[in-house]
């Protein structure tokens, strides 16, 4: 059946793309992995990728930076996105909901450079008043949260909207409280969708480059507080790739491959958690 063939092959093509990209990154990372060696990426004292023997390639601060910034951003964006979608669908006037939907559409389409500029000119000075330099983990997390909340909102809203009216009316007729209805009728069906939204958002946050470069401070060291500067793996690549040669360049690609590995492990972890959480196999 034609549709079946197209459907299946489309799915496979998409998956094949990932393998191509991963292969591309590994191909370019290979010289670094051979000459510097996997261990040194974690054991070296710092990230100072000068050519020659004094080069240091410790990727741990950037790895930690990516993970922390993304985790914080998710912590902020996921509750806000889901709760806002809840409000839009069930608690506010339809016109207001439509307004919010348009607003979220605009937010989703703002280029990272625009959000980064706003972060640099408005957010960083504000944070700097609390503690210098202002360009910090907190700024990075806030900016990332702003960028990923639309995805969570849209995914959740779609899920909430698909609850049949009859289901909700019936529950109301039974005299259930709003929160009871939410807990019993709404939440169980939408959990998989919320998980999809959260995963998409988290992976987007991991891959985000430009906005983070502008507000995170980009010092290659593990941050000790929210107000310390942080460098993500993506910022590492963005800042240094245009001017890197040879081994340094290769090392940056290795960082990119590492980022894909981190993404993959987070995705798999997310799946295991959501499967345990909802009991049945959702996906």
């Amino acid at each position, binding site marked *: 059946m034609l549709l079946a063939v197209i459907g299946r092959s489309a799915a496979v093509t998409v998956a094949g793309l990932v393998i191509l990209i991963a292969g591309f990154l590994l191909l370019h990372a290979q010289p670094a992995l051979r000459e510097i060696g996997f261990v040194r990426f974690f054991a070296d004292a710092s990230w100072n990728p000068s050519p020659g023997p004094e080069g240091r390639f410790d990727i741990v601060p950037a790895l930690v930076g990516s993970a922390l910034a993304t985790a914080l951003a998710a912590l902020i964006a996921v509750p806000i996105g889901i709760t806002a979608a809840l409000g839009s669908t069930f608690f506010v006037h339809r016109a207001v909901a439509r307004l919010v939907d348009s607003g979220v559409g605009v937010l989703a389409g703002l280029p990272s450079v625009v959000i980064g500029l706003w972060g*640099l000119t408005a957010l960083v000075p504000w944070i700097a008043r609390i503690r210098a330099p202002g360009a910090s983990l907190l700024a990075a997390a806030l900016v990332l949260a702003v960028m990923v909340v639309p995805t969570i909102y849209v995914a959740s809203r779609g899920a909430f909207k698909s609850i049949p009216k009859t289901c909700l009316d019936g529950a109301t007729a039974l005299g259930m409280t709003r929160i009871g209805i939410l807990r019993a009728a709404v939440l169980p069906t939408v959990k998989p969708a919320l998980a999809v939204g959260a995963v998409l958002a988290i992976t987007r946050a991991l891959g985000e480059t430009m906005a983070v470069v502008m507000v995170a401070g980009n010092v290659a060291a593990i941050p000790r507080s929210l107000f310390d500067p942080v460098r993500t793996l993506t910022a590492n690549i963005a800042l240094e790739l245009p001017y890197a040669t040879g081994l340094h360049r290769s090392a940056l690609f290795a960082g990119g491959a590492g980022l894909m590995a981190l993404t993959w492990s987070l995705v798999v972890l997310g799946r295991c958690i959501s499967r345990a959480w909802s009991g049945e196999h959702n996906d």
Partner: protein
Amino acid sequence: MESRSSAIVPGARLRGFGGVMLFAALAACARTEESSVAVVTSTGAAGVSVTGTVSVVGSSTIAPVLGELGRLFEAGHPGTRINVETGGSTRGIVEARSGRADIGMVSRALTVNEQDLAAYLVARDGVALILHSGLEVQSLKREQVIDIYTGRIDRWVGVGGPDAPISVIHKAEGRSTLEVFLDHFGLKPTDVRPSVVVGDNQQCIKSVASIPGAIGYVSIGAAEFAVADGVGIRLLPLDGICATTANVRAKRYALTRELNLVTDATVSPVTRAFIDFVLSSDATETIRDLYFVPIGD
């Protein structure tokens, strides 16, 4: 349900329609690319009749200037196309060498390993220290700058300013501004203790303007413009010489970097014509307009 399948089946219809469109588009644009080996239809008079495509790749610092010069060249020489792409000085060198690009843009002096390429110095760019405009510090001695950048002094009170933390803004590894700066102050990359690391000039300027207590170093031209535009930064004199493009032009200011174009050994006539244009006096106004110092000056 009536057979309104065309309206309710976005997928199927779009697929068919899209496929046809894509094919038509591809067919329509299978035009022959003009090769970059030009046909010079008449000899002699400079800039009269070269045609062809020139690809220019490299540093994003020089790209806006070359983009504008390319536009002017195209206007004066119908039938030519100057395609500028960014990607960094390294990419400029690599692609000029491999022939993928006709001209490479490199925002630094060439190293010993790069002498196989022909280099054309297009302009100079000074590098100046800038401060957040609110800071009441008029000048810094050489040792003070070194102490600030190595982290030995971390509050402005240590150099005669207010009691506020110093935010040291530094450039990312590999940039020529960084290399020129470190070289002048005798520092190694590992000596620096930055508070913030930035990428290009505009990011540095905007960061210094946003963070009270910030100090950084940028291209003089960009900084001069920013100051004139009211952005909250201030230029610091270096060893008593004011940081202005005028001083760079007069060769009084010590900290400068080169902006180069590179090609490999053989160039096509249209590439040659374009390089001649960039180095000619017709181009100096455009170069000056974007805050660099043309070599002609």
